[in-house]
């Protein structure tokens, strides 16, 4: 019967690789939690943002109010947002998921609207001339042409969410953030460094993948560009 415990780990090193080796399962679990949280928020965000944006692009009077509301939601610092919900939804995943979804809305709505706006009037004319109207026109002509801009927005939203998830560790839901807090409580740098690096790495990978998707969805040279 051997010891379950390895030799101890270094508290002062920025990364103690033997700890990383011994804890790959835990690291992957936290990584998966992180991806799930960000991914779900993104999905729900899209589900809400697309109809909202379509509405705003059709009825322009609604655009400013919608952008104002989503803008306010975006401005609220994440810890405050989680704290708002805590008394009502407790230490559950919803307390993290709802604010995260709300954060994605501004970016997504904005980009969907811009994408729809950028559909050249000639194309819309031609479509009408061919008998398209209403929903069919939306689904078959306008949204597809808006896809590159939408993906650009999804890129920004995805990366933003990945960066925000760690804060949810303060209410028990943080994916890689939980690793950061755990390391901190033991004066142990390695988990914090590893978690931080993984957050950035995840963002880089997701960003690159979505960029590739964006390019794939753009067979024509003209495309809308999101800056910063």
């Amino acid at each position: 019967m051997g010891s379950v415990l390895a030799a101890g780990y270094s508290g002062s090193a920025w990364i103690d690789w033997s700890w990383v080796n011994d804890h790959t399962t835990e690291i992957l679990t936290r990584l998966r939690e992180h991806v799930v949280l960000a991914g779900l928020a993104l999905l729900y965000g899209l589900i809400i943002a697309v109809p909202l944006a379509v509405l705003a692009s059709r009825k322009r009077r609604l655009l400013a109010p919608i952008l104002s509301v989503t803008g306010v939601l975006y401005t609220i610092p994440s810890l405050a947002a989680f704290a708002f919900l805590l008394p009502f939804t407790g230490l559950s995943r919803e307390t993290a998921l709802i604010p995260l979804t709300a954060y994605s809305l501004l970016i997504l709505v904005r980009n969907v609207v811009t994408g729809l706006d950028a559909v050249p009037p000639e194309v819309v004319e031609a479509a009408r001339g061919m008998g398209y109207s209403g929903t069919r026109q939306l689904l078959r002509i306008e949204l597809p042409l808006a896809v590159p801009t939408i993906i650009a927005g999804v890129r920004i939203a995805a990366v933003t969410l990945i960066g925000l998830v760690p804060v949810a560790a303060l209410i028990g839901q943080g994916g890689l953030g939980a690793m950061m807090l755990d390391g901190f409580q033991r004066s142990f740098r390695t988990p914090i460094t590893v978690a931080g690096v993984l957050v950035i790495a995840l963002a880089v990978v997701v960003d690159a993948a979505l960029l590739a998707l964006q390019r794939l969805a753009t067979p024509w040279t003209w495309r809308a560009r999101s800056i910063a």
Partner: protein
Amino acid sequence: MTKSRTRSGKHALATVAVALVIALALAACGSSSSGKAKSGSSAASNTKLVVGSKNFGGAQILSQAYGQALAAKGYKITYRDNLGATEIVYKALQNGDIDLYGEYQGTLLTYLGGTPTADRQTTYAALQQKLPSDIVATTPAEAVDVNGFYVLKSTADKYHLTTLSSLVPVAPQLVFGGTPECQDRPLCLGTKEQQLYGLHFKDVKKLDEGGPVTTKALDDGTIQVGLLFTGSSVIKSNYVLLTDDKGLQPADNPVAVIRKSVDTSAINGIIDKVNAAMTTAEYNKLALQVQNEKQDPKDVAAQFLKDHGLA
């Protein structure tokens, strides 16, 4: 021309949508972390329990020890770790978000409005009285982990500090650092402490749960008096514990607090065995492995159970 654009555009949209939905649906099927479970007695094998833990090393070791001992006997355990102080975790228990967690009986009794003593048995009896009918606490372990007021040796020498009583006249010149909930806790700087000692400091800083923020603050002089846990914080060799001469700190022994609806005598039996092995010396050793050697509470608990034949 429009037609081919539509087709490729539609294709793009469809591809993106399908890819996203599938990827996210797959990810969403992932669930939160689960613990290991060995096959065991039939009574246990389909019982699921959620084990929560408080937010510092000692408590995490306890919760892990209880959870793993149960898992070894066939229970299906999932963990919700590092939830917070008693206020949060106890509430989670009442809500049914968790089924059991590792607690300290003096702290819990005080939280529930009771008065613990320095005696393990009487404190336990008082706790059982104060607990609501739907929550039970198991027999306490021998180990003790209480609030300790610590100063640097240089400070102790300068002001001739040995006991908490000797601190009282000097306190207004000193800065204190402790947990964020300290001033609401009778056993920290709350009402009971005020009645017994009446410590009034020049400044009270809200730091962390006897962790690195507090120890660093003590080391570099940001605070002169720090609140650390006698059993599970890192106590450096140049720290001096001010003796609790008036007996403010109670018998704060580990107990498992369980929802009555899931409690069985089998579960109690398993936990009692764990607590029977949990002496102060053992507890200390485990806590320092977590704090100093950076071991995981999970692994430390596993080794402890193995050493005592409980897993």
